[in-house]
Every structure is written in C-alpha cells, then in structure tokens.
C-alpha cells in the first residue's frame, strides 16, 4: 500500500516517466500510455520528448473486437466492459506486461456514473501496482491535447488563451502556468458543438449532424441568410447559442411556407448557420485575447476540427493579434481521448500535485 506521505515524496525514478491515462467522463472510453523523457530533472517541461506508447478509444475499435461478438446493451455508456477490455489491450496485465509509473484519470466534470468507472479502475490499479495516482480535470485534459503537438510545445509560453469548443463545452480559459487557469467566458446555454448538432437536426440532417452541416455548407454562401450573432456586442466573453435554434426554426418554417425549394437552399442555410457560430467564437476569442494579452491562442475540443473555424481564426489571429501564435491539437486528438489526460497528468506531476488513491473521488460538477 502507498501511504499519502510516500506519495508526497514521489519523484520519478529517472527523467523518463510513463503515465497510464484513463478517460471515461462521458461517451468515450479511452486508455493511453504516454512516455515523457526530459534531459535532466530540472529541464523545462515543454522540452520533454513525448511518445505515445499506446492509445486506444473504444468507439474507434470494431465492436466485435471489443466484445467478441456479444454487445452488452448498456455497456457502451457504463464504460465498465469497455475499460477492462481497453486496459487488457494496453498490455498492462500478465507476463511481459507494459510498465507505468503514474496513473492519470479524469475525475470531472462529467457524468457521475461514467466518471466513477474510470476513477475506481484507477484507484484499484494504484492500490495493486503501488503507482501514484493523479486526478485530472477534463477541461485541463483538452488543453493538454494541444501540448501533444511537438511544434506547439517548442513555442509553449504563458499566458495562453484557450478556446475550448465541443459538444458539451464552450469556454475561454486563460492558462497562466501549468495547473493555473482562469475562466474568462463560457456558454450560458448551448455549447457550440450542440448548436451545430441541433440546428442540423432542424434541417433534417439527423443527430448529431454537426459534421454533415459543415460538409453541406461547403457548397453554400455564408451570407445567404441573416442569422443572429448572439452576445456579439456584449462586453462579457460569454456565449449564447440557444437563440440560434429558435431563429433557424422560424426561418425554416417561413421558407417552407414561402414554397422555396428546401433542397437547393440547404447548402446556403448550412453555410449561414456555420458562419453565425464561427463569427461569434472568433470575435469573442479575439476580444478576450486583446484584453488578456496571451503569447499564444489555442483552439481545442471536438469543434476545433471544423475547417472553417480553423481558417477564420487563423486569419483573425494573424491580422488582429500580431506576434501571437495559434495552437491546435494534432489531428485525431480533438475529441475526448486518454492521451490528453495522460499529458495533463504529466503537468500535474511536474507541479507535485499528486492525489492519494484513498481520497481520490469522481467530481461530476468540477470546475477549473
């Protein structure tokens, strides 16, 4: 057993450290083993050489490979079966097993029952292996996804302004140092990804139809329809996207009544909706950057994969924020994954912020 005192005294055995990352906060179950090598114990963290020894997210594996043909009904959301199978595939059990020095697990925010699966698995592994444990904030994990990119790490200078945009989050966070954050703004209702998905549903593109909406928008004119840019001129850095749904509903109803052909105007509708969301995200990010004067702006989370958002933000940073660099995660690390949790775990270890397995608990309402 590892006592809290021993955990406090923990130092990596060498400058090489392997972190087992576990993520189960909402829909995705993911496991990663991340290796970090520093030239010496006092070398800056951003000069670490990072290697992903193993990384797997359940939804990316065919179901038969996960469960051998039997698909448990509720398991997909309760994570239990998936996590056990992913840990086995990570090769941490049995003969010739892969070793790890620390366990990093998402402790919140998220769904209580889902978070608990990851946290309890991590606590059990910490108890049985003797490895120290570190609880990671899911939002901090998303921020660390940009740090996984080597060229971002080379230019990693604080403060950094993060735009975190996903199906469940829309936040502007200022990172002042590792483990030191300030929320500058957030959504008051719907997340940006949710705005994409739900307006797509209103247009008959299914749910979640965000990616389909963006694809259809490629052939449309972003200025074809006038849609609201909620809170654009509000002085706060908060967002509001729920009114956009109502506006799209009313617009679609009027178009149908006006017997306009919905199929031919669909690309225009999609492009106009996308422009409304992107405009607000970019304008608020630029405004927050002008006030907080970051060295870099980073865009992370599932919606950061949106090409139009990337293009408009890149242009805005170039023209309106001279000298500021723009970071994004490596492709494939936008949505929830355990590699980013392991990386954020490394940040916490560097600040000596380890937890004890006896005390670590899921925190569904955790803020940053």
């Amino acid at each position, binding site marked *: 057993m590892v006592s809290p005192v021993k955990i406090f005294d923990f130092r990596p055995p060498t400058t090489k450290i392997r972190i087992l990352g576990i993520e189960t906060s*909402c829909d995705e179950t993911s496991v990663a083993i991340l290796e970090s090598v520093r030239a010496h114990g006092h070398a800056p963290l951003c000069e670490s050489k990072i290697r992903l020894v193993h990384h797997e997210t359940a939804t990316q594996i065919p179901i038969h490979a996960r469960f051998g043909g039997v698909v448990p*009904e*509720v398991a997909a*959301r*309760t994570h239990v079966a998936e996590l056990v199978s992913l840990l086995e595939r990570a090769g941490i059990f049995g003969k010739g097993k892969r070793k790890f020095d620390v366990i990093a697990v998402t402790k919140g*925010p*998220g*769904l*209580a*029952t*889902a978070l608990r699966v990851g946290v309890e698995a991590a606590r059990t592994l910490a108890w049985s292996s003797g490895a120290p444990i570190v609880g990671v904030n899911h939002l901090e994990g998303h921020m660390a996804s940009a740090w996984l990119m080597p060229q971002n790490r080379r230019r990693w200078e604080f403060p950094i302004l993060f735009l975190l945009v*996903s*199906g*469940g*989050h829309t936040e502007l966070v200022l990172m002042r140092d590792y483990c030191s954050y300030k929320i500058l703004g*957030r*959504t*008051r*209702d*719907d*997340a940006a*990804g*949710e705005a994409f998905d*739900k307006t797509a*549903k*209103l247009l008959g593109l299914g749910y979640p139809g965000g990616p389909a909406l963006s694809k259809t928008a490629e052939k449309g004119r972003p200025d074809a329809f006038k849609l*609201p840019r*909620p809170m654009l001129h509000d002085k706060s850095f*908060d967002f509001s996207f*729920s*009114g956009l*749904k*109502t*506006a*799209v*509903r*009313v617009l679609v109803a009027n178009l149908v009544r006006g017997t306009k052909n919905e199929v031919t105007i669909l690309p225009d509708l999609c492009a106009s909706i996308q422009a409304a969301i992107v405009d607000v995200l970019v304008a608020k990010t630029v405004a927050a950057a002008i006030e907080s004067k970051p060295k870099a702006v980073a865009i992370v989370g599932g919606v950061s994969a949106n090409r139009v958002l990337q293009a408009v933000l890149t242009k805005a940073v170039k023209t309106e924020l001279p000298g500021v660099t723009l970071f994004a995660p490596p492709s494939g690390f936008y949505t929830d994954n355990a590699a980013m949790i392991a990386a954020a775990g490394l940040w916490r270890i560097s600040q000596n912020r380890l937890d004890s397995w006896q005390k670590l608990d899921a925190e*569904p*309402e955790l803020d940053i």
Partner: protein
Amino acid sequence: MKKNAAGRKVVLKAGGRARRFSVPTAADWPSVSSEMIHLIRPGTILAVQGDLGAGKTTFIQSLAAALGIKRFVPSPTFALMRAYKLPKAVNGIRRLVHVDAYRLKDESELQVLDLDEELVDGQTLLVLEWPERIAGWLGSRLKNVIHLNIN
C-alpha cells in the same frame, strides 16, 4: 430573434388540473416560474416537453433563477445531467437536478443516470427535458410528475 418565437403556448398539468399560459417573449418566462414554485416539492419530477428551440432550457434557467441559483444553467444535452445546490431551501427543495434525455437511444440507458438514486435524498427537484424518451420510467412515477408542454 426572441420575438420570432411569439405565440408560444404553454400548458401546465399538475394533479389532474391544467393551466394555460401565453409566453410571447423569453422575458415572460418568470411569470410561469413563479407560478411553478408553489407546485413543486422535493421529489417532484418536472417534465418539460417541447421541440428543439421551443424554449425548454430558457424556461428552466428562469426557474433556477427563481430558486435562487446564481450559476449559469447551461444545456445538459451533452452532459446528460447537471446538479445545482440551492443557496436556501424553497418548499424543502435544496437541490435541482437538470436532466436531458435527448441523447438517450434506449430507456435501458437510463441506468447510467441512476435517477432514482438522485431523488432518494428527499430534497431534490428533478427537471427533465425530452421526457417522452423515457416514458416508461416516468409512467411508474406519475403521482410526482408535473407536465409542462411548450408549443
């Protein structure tokens, strides 16, 4: 854009009685919320039904404000559930749990929410969006259910 939603009709059904409200703009929700406050108790399940963009979350935000909650009450669609502590008990209610069943594909997925567990403390008000997706669970608890339909 708020005025575009004019003509919104709201029906409140509690204990076999129905009341009708007209909510022309988002600024008119507080009148429904203050009416609602008298009807809710710990253990009440408030089932809020309405299409995408009808104003469900906006109403729940106004109810949360009426209950003294100062924090933002964002959409729980992705998170499925969010919980809030009341600064001071209202009719014995000390906690608001905001649930969204929109993303549940199957009623068996309710297990991950463990809603019965959320209600056992005897001080929780459960507000539920997309109740039609979990009609079975709701049906067996009808005596505690208040319906609010937004059209």
